[in-house]
C-alpha cells in the first residue's frame, strides 16, 4: 500500500512539475523574432487565464498583429535608426497580486514600455510601479477612472467607466426614450461600480428614474433573487455594467424568470456571444463598443487576425492593435525610444486607429467618439442611433 501511495505521489509530483513548465511557457510570448540593440520591447500585462481571459488573449493577439505588420514593413524609423518591435506578454490573471509579480519579472527581463494592464483593478496598482520606474504605460482597456490618475507616464486608449456610464444613460433616456430604468452591478468591482454611479447620476439629471439598483458580489453565479426583484418593479430597461461572464449569466437567468426587459451594457459585454449557450438570451442587447469586426474599414485587420488566430477579433484585439500604433507614433514624434521623450510626445500625436481617431490629453485621457453595437440574429451588428425601429422591436 505504501509503495502504491509512493507511486501515486511520484506521478502527482511529475504532473505538477510539468504544469509549472507548461504554464510559464504559455505565459511568455515573443512576437517579432529579432533580438538585439535595435529592438523595442513592449511589455504586456493582461489575463490569459481565468474569467477575464478573453480580454487578455485578444489584446495580446491584436498587438502581435500590429507588431508583425510594423516589422514586416521594415520597423519604425526613430531619428536615423530603424527599430524593430517585439512583445513580451505575461498573464496577470486580472489580479493585483499576480500583476505585480508579472510586472517585476517583465522589468527583470527588460521592457521599454508597458502595454497594459488589460483590466482595471491591476492597472490601478501597476501605474504606481511604472511611474516609479518612469516608463511609458498605455492601457488598452483599463477603464476605471484611477487607472491612470497621478501618473504622468500613464495613458489610456478606451473610455473611462464614468464616461461609459454617462454615455449609456444619455443613450437609454434620450435615444431609446426610457424613463424607468433598473441597474444590476458588481459591487466588488471598480469597473462596474464606476459605470453604475455615473449612469445613475446622469439618468436622474436627465429626468429619468432608476427604479431598482441591485448589487451582486464577484464570483456570484445566481442572480435570480435580484432579477426577480427587478421584475416586480415598473422598470422598462435593464442596464448591466458588468463583464461578459456575469452578463451571460444575467441574460440567461433573466430569460428563465421571464423578465423580458431590453438589456444594455458597457464595453465589458464584448465577447458575450462566446459565453452564452443560447444566443437568443442576449438578442437585441445594445452595448458600447468602439470596434465592430464587420465594419469594412477594418477588413484588413480582421482578415489578418482571422488568418493568424482562427478567430474573429473583438474590441480588445483592436485596442491592443491601436496601442502598438500609438507607441509607434509617439516614438516617431519623439525621435527617441526613451520613455521620457515618448511620454512628452504623447499629447502631440493623433492616431487614426481601428477604434477611431484618437488624441490624448495631458492627464492621459483619450479624446474620441462613442459607437454602439447590438446583437442581431445572434451576431454583433452596428447600432445606428437614429434608427428607432430596433428599440420598438424589443
Amino acid at each position: 500500500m505504501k509503495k502504491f501511495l509512493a507511486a501515486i505521489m511520484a506521478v502527482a509530483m511529475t504532473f505538477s512539475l510539468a504544469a509549472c513548465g507548461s504554464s510559464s511557457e504559455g505565459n511568455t510570448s515573443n512576437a517579432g523574432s529579432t533580438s538585439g540593440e535595435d529592438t523595442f520591447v513592449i511589455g504586456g500585462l493582461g489575463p490569459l487565464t481565468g474569467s477575464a481571459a478573453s480580454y487578455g488573449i485578444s489584446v495580446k493577439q491584436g498587438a502581435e498583429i500590429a507588431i508583425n505588420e510594423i516589422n514586416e514593413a521594415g520597423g519604425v524609423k526613430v531619428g536615423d535608426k530603424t527599430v524593430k518591435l517585439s512583445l513580451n506578454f505575461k498573464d496577470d490573471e486580472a489580479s493585483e497580486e499576480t500583476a505585480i509579480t508579472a510586472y517585476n519579472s517583465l522589468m527583470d527581463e527588460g521592457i521599454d514600455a508597458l502595454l497594459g494592464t488589460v483590466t482595471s483593478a491591476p492597472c490601478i496598482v501597476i501605474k504606481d510601479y511604472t511611474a516609479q520606474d518612469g516608463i511609458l504605460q498605455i492601457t488598452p482597456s483599463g477603464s476605471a477612472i484611477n487607472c491612470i490618475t497621478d501618473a504622468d507616464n500613464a495613458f489610456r486608449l478606451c473610455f473611462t467607466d464614468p464616461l461609459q456610464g454617462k454615455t449609456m444613460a444619455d443613450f437609454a433616456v434620450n435615444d431609446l426614450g426610457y424613463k424607468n430604468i433598473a441597474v444590476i452591478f458588481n459591487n466588488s468591482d471598480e469597473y462596474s461600480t464606476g459605470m453604475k454611479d455615473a449612469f445613475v447620476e446622469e439618468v436622474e439629471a436627465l429626468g429619468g428614474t432608476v427604479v431598482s439598483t441591485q448589487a451582486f458580489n464577484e464570483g456570484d453565479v445566481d442572480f435570480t433573487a435580484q432579477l426577480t426583484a427587478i421584475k416586480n418593479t415598473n422598470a422598462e430597461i435593464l442596464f448591466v455594467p458588468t463583464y461578459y461572464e456575469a452578463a451571460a449569466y444575467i441574460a440567461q437567468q433573466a430569460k428563465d424568470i421571464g423578465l423580458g426587459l431590453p438589456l444594455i451594457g458597457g464595453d465589458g459585454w464584448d465577447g458575450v456571444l462566446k459565453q452564452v449557450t443560447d444566443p437568443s438570451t442576449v438578442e437585441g442587447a445594445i452595448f458600447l463598443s468602439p470596434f465592430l469586426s464587420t465594419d469594412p474599414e477594418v477588413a484588413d485587420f480582421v482578415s489578418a487576425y482571422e488568418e493568424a488566430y482562427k478567430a474573429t477579433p473583438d474590441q480588445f484585439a483592436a485596442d491592443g492593435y491601436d496601442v502598438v500604433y500609438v507607441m509607434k507614433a509617439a516614438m516617431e514624434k519623439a525621435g527617441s525610444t526613451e520613455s521620457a521623450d515618448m511620454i512628452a510626445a504623447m499629447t502631440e500625436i493623433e492616431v487614426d486607429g481601428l477604434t477611431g481617431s484618437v488624441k490624448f490629453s495631458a492627464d492621459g485621457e483619450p479624446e474620441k467618439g462613442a459607437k454602439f453595437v447590438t446583437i442581431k440574429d445572434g451576431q454583433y451588428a452596428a447600432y445606428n442611433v437614429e434608427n428607432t425601429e430596433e428599440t420598438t422591436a424589443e
Partner: protein
Amino acid sequence: MFNNILEQLINGLRTGSIYALIALGYTMVYGIAKMINFAHGDIIMVGAYALYVAIVLLHLPVIPAIIFTCVVCSVLGILIERIAYKPLRNAPRLAVLITAIGVSYFLQSASLLIFKATPIPFQSIINIQSINIGGVTISGITIVTLVVTTISMIALTLFINKTKAGSAMRAVSEDMGAAQLVGINVNRTITLTFAIGSFLAAVAGILYICQYQSLKPTMGALPGIKAFVAAVLGGIGSIPGAMLGGIILGIIESLSKAFISTELSDAIVFSVLVIVLLVKPSGFLGKKKNEKV
C-alpha cells in the same frame, strides 16, 4: 408584492434543494465515518465536467450521459474513500480532516490541469419552457430541480429505512463497534455511503450546471461550503436535518438578497448559523448525544 415574495420563495426553494442534495452527502458521511468530507463539493465539479465530457466530447445521448456522470462520481467517491480515508480509519480526526482538504485541492488542481481555468460554456440538457401561473413565472430548470430533488430524497429515505443495506448504515452510524460484532461489514457499508453520497453530488452537479451553464474548476467550492453549513444547520448526521437545513438556507439567502441586501446575504446566512448553534448546538434535527466515556 405577493407575486414577488412567491417568486423569491421559489428561487430559494430551488437553490435550497440543490444545497440539500449536497448536504445529504456531508451528513451521511459524517453520520457513519464521523468525518467531514471537504472534498464533497468538488465531486459536484467533477460531475459537471463528466457531463460535459459525455455530451460535448463523447457525443452521448442525454440519458447515457447522465448515467455516465453518476457512475464516474460514485466510482470517484469510492476511490477517494479507499485511497485517502480508509488507511486513516483509526488515525486522529484532525489527520482525516486535513486529508479531506488535500483531496479537495487535488481534485480542483487536476481539473485545472485537464480543462484549464477558462470557463467553458455548457448548453443545458434540460429544455423545458418556463411556465406562468397567475403572473408567477417558474423556469423549466426550477421545476426539474424540485422534482428530481424530491424524488432523490424520498428514494434515499426509503432506502435508509426499508432496506437491509440501509439498516446496516443506520447501525454503523449508531455504534460502529457493536455493528461489527453483530456481523455487519463496516468497510463495505462505509464504501456504500460514499458511493451514495457521491451519486447525489453527481445529481446536484448536473442540476447545477444546467442552471448556470458555465464550467470552471472551482465551481464546487461555494455550493460545497453552503451545503456544509446547511448540514450543520439541520443537525449534522441527521438525514431529514440536511434536507431541512438546505431548504431553509436557500430560502433565507433568497429572501435576504431580495428584501434586505445582496451584499449582506452571506453574512445573514452565516449569522443564522451562529444563532442556531448557540441556541441549539446540535442543529435543528440533530440528536443530542452525551460523550461516551
